[in-house]
């Protein structure tokens, strides 16, 4: 069964489809996010509420994991991903409508549902792992993470084009164009998945294990599994804390840069360069993290990720207004995130049976989203009252518990290992 050519072919096809839809979905997410804060500032008239649009999308993405898990558990990946992208389409159209009607509440509701696109882009990596063999699971998963790079890099530059096109061709309101582009990206991703992601990788993986009937999957079920399974728990914690540290330091880096400069145009340029390098660090080398996790082990790569995150906090935290050092810190931050994300996700996937995966994976994305939302909100206060170096120090302290968990081994292994037969 394992090396069956038919199964290998199906897995290759699955990863190819996910790779394509991940690019489309990634463009959809990045286009919307690029102008999200701007349009909310425009609608509400205050920058204080503009940041909440982003939080709304993050929380929406995290909470949407709950229904997505239900649907994935009962009907497979195809239904789950299409539901998530579908929510993204509705969200993007609501935001565009809100701009025509000049309605801020409608825009917030739209941003919340737009999080569905992010949720789908996150869950897609797990669909790539369903039929992957244990020997190359992390690499297959990392390929889908890597595909996000293309969307994340091209999306923001497509935003002004979409904006200009709608305003000039159809006399639409400012900022509505990018959201229509988001809606198109998500709709295309959903359409391709609906048409081609069959047979469903999760359903096939489950039938191989002899659990043909659909078990009821839920995030709370995932919580029960994680409670009894220390490996799955470690995977969830590694992903969430890596994300928390990354978001906390990244979110405040533009503010830190701005505090040391006077020319606003120069600030925008430097922020753009530093964040682009950071995003490259996050995604571009993710296949390397995947290959190393398959070769050396997931725990080893999580440890490497923690090392990189600590180094990133030290580098960025002591950079002051040396922008080269700050950029180096942010690249390291991206690389560390990539290692904990890829290795942690592969670890938790391998730690549970196919029938239990959707619940645990959904829980992981929910916890990760909440950790990111918390980090985004808390980092502002830390920088306000204690400064950027203290933020970096606190972020470094946060990753330490993961190290303890990675190094801790179950007693059973040692016993079995030593026992002479």
């Amino acid at each position, binding site marked *: *069964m*394992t*090396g069956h050519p038919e199964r290998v072919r199906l897995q290759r096809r699955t990863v190819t489809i996910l790779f394509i839809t991940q690019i489309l979905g990634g463009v959809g997410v990045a286009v919307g996010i690029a102008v999200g804060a701007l349009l909310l500032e425009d609608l509400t008239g205050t920058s204080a509420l503009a940041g909440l649009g982003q939080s709304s999308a993050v929380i929406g993405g995290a909470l949407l994991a709950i229904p997505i898990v239900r649907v994935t558990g009962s009907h497979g990946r195809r239904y789950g991903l299409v539901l998530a992208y579908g929510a993204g389409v509705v969200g993007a159209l609501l935001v565009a409508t809100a701009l025509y009607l000049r309605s801020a509440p409608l825009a917030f509701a739209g941003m919340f549902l737009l999080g569905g696109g992010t949720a789908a882009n996150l869950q897609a990596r797990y669909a790539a792992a369903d039929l992957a*063999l*244990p*020997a190359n699971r992390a690499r297959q998963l990392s390929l889908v993470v890597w595909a996000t790079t293309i969307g994340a890099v091209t999306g923001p530059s497509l935003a002004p084009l979409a904006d200009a096109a709608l305003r000039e061709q159809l006399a639409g309101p400012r900022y509505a164009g990018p959201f229509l582009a988001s809606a198109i990206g998500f709709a295309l991703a959903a359409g391709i998945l609906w048409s081609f992601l069959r047979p469903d990788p999760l359903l096939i993986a489950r039938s*191989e*294990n002899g659990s043909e009937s659909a078990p009821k999957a839920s995030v709370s079920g995932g919580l029960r599994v994680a409670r009894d399974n220390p*490996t799955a728990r470690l995977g969830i914690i590694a992903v969430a804390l890596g994300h928390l540290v990354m978001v906390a330091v990244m979110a405040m880096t533009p503010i830190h840069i701005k505090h040391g400069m006077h020319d606003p145009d120069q600030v925008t340029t430097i922020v753009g360069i530093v964040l682009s390098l950071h995003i490259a660090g996050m995604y571009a080398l993710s296949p390397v993290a995947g290959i190393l996790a398959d070769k*050396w*082990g*997931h*725990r*080893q790569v999580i440890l490497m990720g923690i090392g990189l995150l600590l180094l990133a906090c030290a580098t960025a935290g002591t950079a002051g207004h040396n922008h080269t050092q700050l950029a180096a810190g942010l690249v390291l931050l991206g690389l560390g995130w990539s290692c904990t994300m890829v290795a942690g996700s592969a*670890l938790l996937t*391998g*730690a*549970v*049976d*196919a*029938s239990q995966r959707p619940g645990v994976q959904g829980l992981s994305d929910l916890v990760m989203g909440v950790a990111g939302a918390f980090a985004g909100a808390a980092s502002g206060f830390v920088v306000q009252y204690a400064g950027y170096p203290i933020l970096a120090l606190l972020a470094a302290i946060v990753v330490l518990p993961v190290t303890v968990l990675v190094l801790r*081994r*179950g007693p*059973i*292994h040692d016993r*079995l*290992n030593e*026992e*002479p*037969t």
Partner: protein
Amino acid sequence: MRLTDFWENMRETFGEAYASSVAEDQVLPQLGGRTVNQALRDTDTKHVWIAVCHAYGDRVPARIRR
């Protein structure tokens, strides 16, 4: 197959650190969704080794593959 031979094979395949992590962390469909460590409690070592060979395929050196 003796347990010591089993672990020797595991180390040869995965290296010292990863061998113990594979045994502790990964559930294998061939072991009914259990980990190697869990299966070793009540399953013949040879059966467990064959499951590892099936799951990891080419990663297992041909000399010790079953």
